[in-house]
């Protein structure tokens, strides 16, 4: 092996990390100008409070999302109960529901002035006490309902391949099904569960839309406040760096805890049709539990949205919505393909590269998911604006060359969503035994041929998961789209923003519902793939 061959994976990993590196550099440069006096104020009155709130929120959301996602995945993957085949895909649908939409539906219907408490007060008297939805519990519940599908998806994938074997192993050791779940299946699924939990945690850290509806103060709302209200973008970027640092440390701790365990497993057809048959009350409890989560996370909010959308449709619905939808789908498609391609390059490069540089590059490249989209957008706009100015100084002329183009938009999406594609692709790579690769290379295949003829076919399901996760996430994305889109590139999420920014939530129902409907397509495709993979395995 020549030295250039040894370095090329490292170079590839660094190249993939470039968008995020450019953003981080722009953020650091901005943060260098942070106002010392303002920092003192934030330290005294703001930081401790928002840090505590953020920790509570992330811990609560991750705990509930993990409990919901893992239990439902186990029920639909390893058990049988009435409605199982419906719930196995329906439980993914909340993924199409943006967290900010779920939040505004929850507050508009469940707060004191909402329809549900008004109805209950009508039945039980005006003094009826109800738990307030605008509370820490309320915001945790909403974000957990929006986030559990990530855990469910990852856990289900793992249980489908390991679940039956775990049960067999447990049985042969004389353990019951519960011990099979907790002592065999969950430990075996750990990398996937951890991946799902990390996605939920990062999404929660970066969330602005949902926490704003609840007026719950987090690190992200503090970043917005420093920028929008204290007029100090520098201080806002400083806060964002602090948040990044926190994420880096948390991820490093998680990796250290996971240790050096290897989870590669052969995928060769050991999946048996072994399911635990639930009967009687237990079967109906499982069905009721799945139905409750599906109703709260999807069915009821979708009904509320449909009702509002119906009222405003005569006012708003016209041919523009076709354009909004096509642009949304087109951008999501482009970003998904791009993120998948880069995730494969990154996964393969870190697998082949010697030395820690490629690993570090991979970590930087996938940090963006924990950063509020608005911060990334500022980084993209600043970096590309500077590039444009430099280009104009060199080449003359005027006008923008990079900023305000689709390129800027895609750069922002890659910086933000690469992690979403990287998770499943990396999981797929980890399950391919290194010995297979060695064998292929022993036949004299080059690196690219090994990738094309060995890895890509084996990555199949992981690639599908990656592409569809990014697709759905981009459809829901708001701040990057708003700040970097070219003229005339309004999407459905832009339309939601324009309505909610003016407090017209009911009118926002129409574009929100359109996002949900358009998002259903990839989610249905995803579940169909999962089912097929399970059948053919």
């Amino acid at each position: 092996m020549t030295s250039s061959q040894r370095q090329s994976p490292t170079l590839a990993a660094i190249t993939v990390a470039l968008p995020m590196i450019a953003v981080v550099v722009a953020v650091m440069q901005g943060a260098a100008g942070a106002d010392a006096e303002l920092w003192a104020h934030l330290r005294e009155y703001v930081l401790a409070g928002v840090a505590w709130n953020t920790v509570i929120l992330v811990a609560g959301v991750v705990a509930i999302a993990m409990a919901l996602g893992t239990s439902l995945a186990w029920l639909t993957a390893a058990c049988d109960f009435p409605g199982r085949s419906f719930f196995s895909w329906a439980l993914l649908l909340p993924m199409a529901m943006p967290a900010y939409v779920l939040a505004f539906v929850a507050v508009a219907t469940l707060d004191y002035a909402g329809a549900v408490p008004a109805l209950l007060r009508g039945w039980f008297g005006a003094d009826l006490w109800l738990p307030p939805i605008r509370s820490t519990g309320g915001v945790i519940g909403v974000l957990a309902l929006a986030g559990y599908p990530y855990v469910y998806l990852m856990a289900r994938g793992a249980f489908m391949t390991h679940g039956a074997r775990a049960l067999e192993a447990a049985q042969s050791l004389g353990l019951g099904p519960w011990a099979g779940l907790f002592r065999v299946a969950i430990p075996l699924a750990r990398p996937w569960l951890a991946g799902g939990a990390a996605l939920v945690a990062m999404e929660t850290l970066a969330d602005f839309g949902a926490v704003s509806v609840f007026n719950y103060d987090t690190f992200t709302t503090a970043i917005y406040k420093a920028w929008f209200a204290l007029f100090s973008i520098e201080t806002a970027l400083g806060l964002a760096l602090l948040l990044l640092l926190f994420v880096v440390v948390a991820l490093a701790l998680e990796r250290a805890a996971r240790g050096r365990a290897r989870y590669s497993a052969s995928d060769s057809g050991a999946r048996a049709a072994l399911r635990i048959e639930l009967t009687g009350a237990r079967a109906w409890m499982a069905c009721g539990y799945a139905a409750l989560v599906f109703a709260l996370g999807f069915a009821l909010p979708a009904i509320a949205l449909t009702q509002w959308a119906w009222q405003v449709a005569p006012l708003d619905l016209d041919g523009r919505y076709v354009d909004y939808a096509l642009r949304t789908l087109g951008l999501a498609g482009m970003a998904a393909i791009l993120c998948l391609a880069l995730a494969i390059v990154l996964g393969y490069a870190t697998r082949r590269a010697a030395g820690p540089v490629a690993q570090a590059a991979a970590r930087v490249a996938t940090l963006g998911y924990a950063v509020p989209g608005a911060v990334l957008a500022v980084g993209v706009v600043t970096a590309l604006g500077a590039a444009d100015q430099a280009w104009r100084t060199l080449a003359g002329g005027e006008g923008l060359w990079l900023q305000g183009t689709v390129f800027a938009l895609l750069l922002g999406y890659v910086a933000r969503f690469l992690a979403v594609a990287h998770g499943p692709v990396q999981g797929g790579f980890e399950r391919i035994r290194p010995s297979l690769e060695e064998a292929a290379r022993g036949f004299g295949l080059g690196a690219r041929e090994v990738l094309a003829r060995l890895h890509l076919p084996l990555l199949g399901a992981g690639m599908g998961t990656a592409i569809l996760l990014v697709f759905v996430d981009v459809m829901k994305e708001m701040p990057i789209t708003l700040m970097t889109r070219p003229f005339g590139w309004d999407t459905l999420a832009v339309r939601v923003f324009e309505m909610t920014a003016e407090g017209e939530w009911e009118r926002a129902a129409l574009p929100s519902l359109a996002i949900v409907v358009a998002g259903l397509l990839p989610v249905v495709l995803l579940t169909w793939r999962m089912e097929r993979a399970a059948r053919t395995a």
Partner: protein
Amino acid sequence: MVLKLHRAGWLATLLLVPLLLAGTARAAGEPLVVYTARKYQLVDELFQEYGRNRGIEVKFVTDDGAPLIQRLIAEGANSPADLFISVDAGDLWRATEAGILAPVKSPMLESAIPPHLRDPQGRWFGLAVRARTIAYSTDRVKPAELSTYAALGDARWKGKLCLRSGKHAYNQSLVAMMIGDLGEAATERVVRSWIANLAAPPFSSDTLLLKAIAAGQCDVGIVNSYYLGRLQAETPGFPVQIFWADQKAGGTHVNISGGGVTRHAKNRAEAIRFLEWVATPAIQQRFAAVNYEFPANAGVAPLPVVAAWGKFEPNLVNVGTIGRTQPAAVRLLDRAGWR
């Protein structure tokens, strides 16, 4: 192989559709390019009409004020924007501080827009006025019980006051105005007395707040009047009414939606012409009416539903000075614990 071709075609379609859509922009005379925080549904019709009248294209993007300002800063001399439209005087002040707006000398604008609603140097002009005042339940409150913003901190409103989040610009500019009028220490006492009177945690929107008053969760609140205008238009008999605060002294707090010509405008003459067009009485009426606001041009009457709230004395401090005080107001809110 067939499958592969099929897949390639699918991918190509996904990639090409948006590019085709982007290509539909018409080529015309020099377009007018606007970055606007006043949202699509409130500006699109007027932009289209102006473009038709002038035979040009009006191109615009919407976003919040702060990101649009950051976009203008980053783009610098290369920016395509001719005009920046904001929905908050604080953002306009911030834009002048960042040096992205250019002075405009226009006798027409200076006579149409009162001095407290425009920048003395002509870098921005108010185009619609939004009043932030007291809203009360018509079932449980008599207007005679109300007087000033500060009096909402009286013990009689204990557990009966609703406020929107302190993170919102409209509350920050109200507090900034109070700091100018009362001083910082007195303003902080007032804000603390409000917080002590809250019936519920602060709301994320004025609309939710007004619905909470109507539902009986609280009796009084502070809102921008146009949110009530929309609700009254939707639901005749909505049981909440407007009370004009601080009429004996000081005047009701007003903020503006306004615009300014950018420093690097490529089409400066058209941008000025557009502002002057919006300042004419006929367009002023419509610009305000679409959002139940007050026209900035004092000679123009608001919508009947808005006029029904009665005339009021606005606070005459220049709305631009509010921007300067806004960071101090935000810190005050942090200290007082207004979330």
